[in-house]
């Protein structure tokens, strides 16, 4: 069943802001509190708000189970392949091979006390993005499967 009109309007209004906030927590994971897991959980909360506010058919039409499950697989694969790629450069497993190379997120850290630059950290922000993708897929899939068990009565 659909929730009341007030709940649906509030969910529609809040949805983009929650997604942007989750993305912000993931992207700034190496500078500020938070990271992949927390940002992914906030992102999944936005999706789950829409799932709870609408009926099962609408929710499944909007967020496909296959896409969310592929998000989970892609996050795990990116995480492990980033860690394994360090072996190809002749260094250890999980070595930070992007840092100080000038690639994306590869700038050098400025010396002294400073608020931090987003374009630093090497492999850490990339792994944060991978973990965020994995967590948002996994938590949303859990809720979608729970909802599919109750769709007969709803």
């Amino acid at each position, binding site marked *: *069943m659909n929730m009341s009109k007030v709940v649906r309007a509030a969910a529609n209004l809040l949805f983009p802001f929650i997604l942007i906030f989750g993305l912000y*927590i993931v992207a700034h994971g190496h500078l500020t*509190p*938070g*990271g992949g*897991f*927390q940002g992914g*959980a*906030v992102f*999944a*909360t936005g999706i*789950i*708000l829409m*799932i*709870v506010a609408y009926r099962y058919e609408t929710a499944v039409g909007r967020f496909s189970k296959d896409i969310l499950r592929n998000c989970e697989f892609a996050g795990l694969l990116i995480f492990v392949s980033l860690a394994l790629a360090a072996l190809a450069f002749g260094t250890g497993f999980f070595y930070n091979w992007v840092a100080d190379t000038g690639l994306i997120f590869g700038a050098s850290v400025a010396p002294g006390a400073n608020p931090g630059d987003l374009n630093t950290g090497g492999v850490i922000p990339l792994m944060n993005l991978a973990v965020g993708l994995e967590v948002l897929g996994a*938590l949303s899939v859990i*809720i979608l499967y*729970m*909802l599919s*068990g*109750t769709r007969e*009565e*709803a």
Partner: protein
Amino acid sequence: MIEYIAHIVVLIGLVVSALLVWRFRDLLSAAIAFGIFSFLLSLEFYILQAPDVAIAEAGIGAGLTTAIFILAIKGTTRWEDAEE
């Protein structure tokens, strides 16, 4: 001083919301009270200078767990002592 007062207010709110979860016979009200409990707990983590844990608690405790409880109430009954 103001931090001390805020700390006391949050702790009293935690105890009150936990008692409300225990007292309510309407399970939807109990789920919302549990969401308020999780929100105050994340505020308490922030006061104790653990912002990382506070974000995780706000996302998982206040957001996801409340949604799971509401979905469970949708699939079953809303009142605790409902006759089957």
